């Protein structure tokens, strides 16, 4: 049985819808749901399974899981987006300079990047977070720094490829400055790769935030984040598995959406790097 192309293409659409919904929830939930709904403790309904009063059940303190997971979206999305933005802000100039200038600059910068890549990203993020003291802001810094070498590496490769294009040669012959060439000729042409990589990084950043918070070295209570909710569920798995399932599914849906969207983007924007679909 052959799967129709239209259906295969719809993967990007499904991904986009998932991502959009999660971002909308992250943006709108705090507007429509009063914050204390997520912290209100219903002592008569602790670890309650899904009921009419609590559609997704409650946690060990009788707090409503639906409101917690909806409000937790804000924290998780905010941390992941800010961390990816940070890695772009540092990695983009690094990669561009390395790829465009080449020679010694490239050698030194890439040696440094390769060394950083020897540290598992999660280990690097955990160490930075432990060093700086775990809180929301330092979680962003930790994930942002840990992801920078990946981005710098990819941007450097793209910049290197584009810098050898005839139109760049032409721009140089026409007497344009290096700065102008980088901004007007190289940057626009590596943007597709940057966008694709950022989408994929965003998926990894959501997973990293969940991992850090799960280990207690990320978001701290009373902020509600998905990783923190899964961590809290550990001691009640026997009696109340939904306390782990609800935030776990939230993470999975978000990351799945980002991956589907990222795959489709790559196929659309970057036909050379086909695959993984």
């Amino acid at each position, binding site marked *: 049985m052959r799967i129709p192309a239209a259906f295969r293409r719809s993967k990007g659409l499904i991904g986009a819808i998932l991502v959009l919904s999660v971002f909308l929830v992250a943006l709108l939930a705090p507007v429509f749901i009063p914050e204390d709904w997520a912290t209100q403790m219903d002592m008569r309904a602790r670890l309650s399974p899904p009921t009419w009063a609590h559609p997704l059940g409650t946690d060990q303190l009788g707090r409503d899981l639906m409101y917690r997971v909806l409000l937790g979206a804000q924290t998780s999305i905010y941390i992941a987006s800010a961390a990816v933005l940070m890695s772009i802000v540092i990695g983009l100039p690094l990669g561009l300079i390395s790829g465009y200038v080449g020679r010694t600059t490239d050698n030194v910068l890439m040696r440094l990047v390769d*060394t950083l890549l020897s540290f598992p990203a999660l280990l690097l993020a955990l*160490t930075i977070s432990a060093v700086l*003291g775990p809180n929301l802001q330092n979680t962003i810094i930790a994930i942002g720094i840990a992801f920078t070498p990946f981005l710098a590496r990819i941007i450097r490769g793209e910049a290197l490829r584009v810098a050898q294009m005839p139109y760049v040669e032409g721009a140089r012959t026409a007497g344009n400055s290096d700065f102008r060439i980088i901004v007007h000729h190289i940057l626009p042409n590596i943007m597709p790769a940057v966008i694709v990589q950022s989408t994929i990084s965003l998926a990894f950043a959501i997973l990293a935030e969940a991992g850090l918070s799960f280990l207690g070295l990320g978001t701290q209570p009373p902020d509600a984040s998905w990783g923190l909710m899964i961590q809290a569920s550990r001691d009640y798995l026997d009696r109340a598995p939904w306390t782990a399932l609800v935030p776990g599914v939230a993470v*999975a849906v978000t990351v799945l959406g980002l991956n589907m969207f990222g795959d489709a983007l790559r196929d659309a924007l970057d036909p050379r790097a086909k695959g*993984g679909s």
Partner: protein
Amino acid sequence: MSYLVNRLLSMMLTLFLISVITFTVTNILPGDVAMMIMGTQSNPEALAGLRQSLGLNDPLIVQYGRWIGGMLTGDWGNSLVFKEPIAPLLLQKMKASALIVLFSMSIALVCAVPLGVWAAVHANRWQDTAASSASLVGVSLPDFFWGIMLILLFARGLGWLPSSGFIDPADDIWGAMRHALLPSLALGLGLMAHLTRMTRATMTGILNQEFIRVARAKGLDEGTVVWRYGLANAVGPVMTVAGLQVGYLFGSIIVIESLFNFTGMGWLTYQALLNRDIPLIQASVFVIAAVVMLANLIVDLLYVAVDPRIRLS
């Protein structure tokens, strides 16, 4: 040969940089080893005395020299939390982790390669859609979520396997395997999904190439075309990705070993980070980064051994 020498020299340089980064990052920690040993409420004079005797007042570069000198000669200092010499402690935990790292890597490779090839052979048909969708879900779930689900199913639900602890294979090989299986699966499922995607992508590219069409036109049977001609060309890229995943694995073991109370390297590193055991953090971060780098070097060398095109160029 000169390739090997070059690689080894560059490895030395990378190791040196790893040590500098590790030392620098851990030295921004507020509070120092003296404070850790004596507690925050201690007598300032005694604290100053201890700082002096530990050499914490020396310039950073001198402290780095002393630390790296110790690392190179096998004197890795003492853990503040475990009150033991670090080198034997790390070595012992490393062995425990090696068990689940190798186990999960084997599970992942054994399942992912055939699955990826199968998906590529049936590209854009239901088999491909099924395998690709499953692996997409696989890469989208955090490993600790896999871990929790496995505990719920196999430990709490069915009661087949223990959900926590580590047993030394030297003491009881059967018990060790039973304790290592769930953490290895939790690590391996995500890895398997990554490798399936990679194998499928690489094989799809290869199966569309000219020489495959020629092989088919010669009348070779499909099995030979796919496995001997196709896969032989995919081994290199897939191996490289598997090698890169070693780094990812050594990040994941921190979470998974803590979840399963599996007392290996990841668990040890987590304890060090939680308790700000600076000497232990330095040693374990350095060792993990070195192991990851070594794993990638081995994969690169294997790649050269497997692919004659690289050896010639």
